[in-house]
């Protein structure tokens, strides 16, 4: 890739982070949690976007970022309060900035000019401490003063260094084919800033031929010589076609730290218009000699580096400063995945080795068994560390939500506050990527369906502003994400009625509150009376549920009327390994995901009931659940075995339904590496994936839901009417 293209890609990546920081910071201010450093960080984020954008000539972005930055600078200096409407405006500005970045990156239709101009105008008004100018009929706003205005920062828009403090006519002046006489007397300050007269003289030499005459008249007697003080001066005669501007540019950094006189040499007389300086104390010498001699004989006023035992202590800025930046490297995902694959093989190999050792009695010998234990421990640690490489904080998903919330709030006229917790909780990158959509949908639903209008809330004695809480936490090897609102809760009456209307349940069905709540996950179920723009029709919670399940996750809801609802997602931390129960069935070894298993039990003959022509039910305590012979279900045997000789895995499907899976024996629990069947073959019904066991053979991982659903015994209610309805 072209290096600039690659840096541009970096820029857009960085923009994403900066925009995230920007929004997070503004949110903190909005919640009254920010401090000075928060404002500084916000300023820096916009500033960095602008800086990068300038480098790539992204003018629209630069222009807007500039106005934004100006307002933030006022906030930083305390002229604008970091709270209230100002912060709200800045949040909207952050959205525009994000859109402008996206446009710059992806091209396509630009951000609505009018919108960005309107916000820019409001920001300007804010900066200037006045009411925003109303947009005129054409949508044109008085912000065109900024880009072309060299007043504050206009030079930023020109991709080149321009020497300030120079009259324009000097810059434009044609090179004079004459010489210059330059008198240069550095102050001590020049050296204190690590400038060096010798370098400046060398630079001058680059402009033309130089005759340099050192002026030693300021040099005190040796005993009085202070090496920290500048005593020397030079007079230089420069011949060549260069402009005064070019000479001044050489001394640009020295300005204010030296006496500098520049005069044109009189071409004919060979003398300068400059009044004669002090008598040159030495013969004229060429620049390079001057350099050498000066460097050799006269110690520069800058002391040679002296080892110091008290290094300068950074005066770090106050408390809330961010944690020390961790060193990072960027690695292609392919390499990480290859590593994870290899570790998966190592895990299998280690298991095989352990099994062989125990079969051959080698395991009995102390040394071997201990070494094998260590190997297992080590392997597990390597595996965990590898998985951790792919792990990322959920922050990247959570960060998308504030904006979403603002937009929905604006569309619905509801007032919402978003609270996030546990943003730093990490989970596999793929899980994060595939979490965005369902989570977006859930947050959208929480506002659209969950929260009441401000009026309704007031009437119910609640604060007019509703709260949506988004949290993430690690719990027993999974990540649990909650989306909670303090809205009206599930209207069970209405849900029930809808379900009856749609033939999902029988009108007479007796359902628990929980069962009613779970009806919203049924395909095609939507509780909104009207099809709203926001939640739409058809994309219901069933879709959310399916995408969560596809990730090996579960979703559940709990709701209290009038108090709100909580949706809980439980997801695996990685898609590469799975905690499973290894079982035997019809001579084959199978793995059942541990998360689906409620309990295991030995069925008693008296708890078995025939149900229908082929069906069987198992009584577990007081409930009957369908009994499924896994061997039969997978087509490995035709007739069921004697359940009394078997073991039952009581499992729960994602929808909360239960079933008893009959297998021959349980071997134990272990973590297995998930291998896709689809890579070389295709999806197989009833099978989620495959894994490789310690003996090197492939075992299938059961797809519990599929195993149950395709041989579904009708639940107590509903199925008949479902058939009727369809």
């Amino acid at each position: 890739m072209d290096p600039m293209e690659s840096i541009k890609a970096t820029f857009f990546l960085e923009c994403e982070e900066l925009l995230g920081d920007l929004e997070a910071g503004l949110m903190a201010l909005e919640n009254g949690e920010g401090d000075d450093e928060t404002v500084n960080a916000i300023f820096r984020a916009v500033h960095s976007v602008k800086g990068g954008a300038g480098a790539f000539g992204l003018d629209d972005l630069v222009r807007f970022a500039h106005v934004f930055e100006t307002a933030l600078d006022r906030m930083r200096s305390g002229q604008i309060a970091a709270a209230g409407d100002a912060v709200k405006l800045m949040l909207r500005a952050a959205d525009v900035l994000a859109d402008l970045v996206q446009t710059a990156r992806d091209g396509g239709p630009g951000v609505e000019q009018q919108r960005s101009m309107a916000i820019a105008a409001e920001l300007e008004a804010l900066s200037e401490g006045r009411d925003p100018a109303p947009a005129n009929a054409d949508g044109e706003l008085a912000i065109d003063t900024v880009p072309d205005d060299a007043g504050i920062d206009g030079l930023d828009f020109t991709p080149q260094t321009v020497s300030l403090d120079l009259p324009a006519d000097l810059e434009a002046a044609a090179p004079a084919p004459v010489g210059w006489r330059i008198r240069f007397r550095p102050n001590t300050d020049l050296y204190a800033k690590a400038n060096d007269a010798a370098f400046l003289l060398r630079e001058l030499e680059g402009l033309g031929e130089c005759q340099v005459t050192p002026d030693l008249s300021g040099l005190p007697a040796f005993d009085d010589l202070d090496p920290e003080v500048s005593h020397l001066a030079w007079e230089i005669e420069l011949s060549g076609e260069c402009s005064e501007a070019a000479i001044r540019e050489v001394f640009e950094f020295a300005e204010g730290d030296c006496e500098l006189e520049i005069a044109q040499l009189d071409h004919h007389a060979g003398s300068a218009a400059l009044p004669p300086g002090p008598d040159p104390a030495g013969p004229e010498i060429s620049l390079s000699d001057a350099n050498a001699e000066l460097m050799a004989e006269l110690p520069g006023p800058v002391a040679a580096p002296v080892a110091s035992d008290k290094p300068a202590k950074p005066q770090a800025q106050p408390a809330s400063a961010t944690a020390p930046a961790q060193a990072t490297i960027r690695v292609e995902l392919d390499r990480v995945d290859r590593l994870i694959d290899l570790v998966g093989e190592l895990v299998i190999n280690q298991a095989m080795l352990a099994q062989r050792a125990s079969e051959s009695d080698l395991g009995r010998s102390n040394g071997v068994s201990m070494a094998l234990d260590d190997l297992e421990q080590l392997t597990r640690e390597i595996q965990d560390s590898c998985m951790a490489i792919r792990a990322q904080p959920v922050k990247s998903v959570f960060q998308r939500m504030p904006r979403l919330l603002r937009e929905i709030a604006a569309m619905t006229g509801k007032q919402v506050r978003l609270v996030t917790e546990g943003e730093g909780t990490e989970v596999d990158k793929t899980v994060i990527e595939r979490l965005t959509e369902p989570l977006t949908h859930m947050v959208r639903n929480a506002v659209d369906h969950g929260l009441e209008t401000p009026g309704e809330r007031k009437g119910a004695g609640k604060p007019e502003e509703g709260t949506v809480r988004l949290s993430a936490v690690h719990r027993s090897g999974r990540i649990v994400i909650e989306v909670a609102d303090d809205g009206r809760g599930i209207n069970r009456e209405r849900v029930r009625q809808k379900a009856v209307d749609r033939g999902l349940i029988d009108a007479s069905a007796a359902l628990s509150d929980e069962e009613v709540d779970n009806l919203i996950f049924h395909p095609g179920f939507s509780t909104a009376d009207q099809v709203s723009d926001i939640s739409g029709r058809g994309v219901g919670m069933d879709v959310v549920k399916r995408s969560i399940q596809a990730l090996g996750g579960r979703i559940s809801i709990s709701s209290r009327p009038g108090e709100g609802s909580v949706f809980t997602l439980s997801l695996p931390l990685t898609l590469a390994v799975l905690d499973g129960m290894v079982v035997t069935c019809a001579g084959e070894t199978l793995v059942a995901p541990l998360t689906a298993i409620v309990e295991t039990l030995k069925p008693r003959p008296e708890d078995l009931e025939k149900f229908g022509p082929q069906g069987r039910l198992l009584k577990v305590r007081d409930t009957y659940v369908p009994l499924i012979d896994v061997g039969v279900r997978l087509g490995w045997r035709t007739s069921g075995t004697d359940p009394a000789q078997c073991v039952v895995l009581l499992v729960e499907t994602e929808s909360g339904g239960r079933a008893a899976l009959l297998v021959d024996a349980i071997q134990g629990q272990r973590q297995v590496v998930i291998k896709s069947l689809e890579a070389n073959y295709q999806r197989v019904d009833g099978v989620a994936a495959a894994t490789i066991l310690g003996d090197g053979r492939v075992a299938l991982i059961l797809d519990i839901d599929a195993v149950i659903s395709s041989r579904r015994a009708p639940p107590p209610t509903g199925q008949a009417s479902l058939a009727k309805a369809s």
Partner: protein
Amino acid sequence: MSQTVLTVDDSRTMREMLRAALDTAGFRVIQAEDGVDGLDRLEEEMPDVIITDINMPRLDGFGFIESVRGDERYRGVPILVLTTESEPAKKMRARDAGATGWIVKPFDPERLVDAVRRVSAAG
């Protein structure tokens, strides 16, 4: 031996741009992400020139320059300040802190290299 430039900037984009420009010109580049990081780098390396941003977390450019100038070992190292703020105030403050010169962002790679050469022994 090629000269070493320490770049101190919290923006990854800017760090990469500096690296690209300086690499091409034959400088060896070491990078730091903010003032504190920059001072840490200085414990390990003795750069010939330092280029620093002003707006940075933890320790900003002014503080960084002051710390460098306050350390006997580094007070002779030229420091160029990166700034988009061409207001004289910002520049003056950086100079007062001890900056040798400045580079206005967005910079042209040639100009950048010129500025570095102007303050260093890399002729």
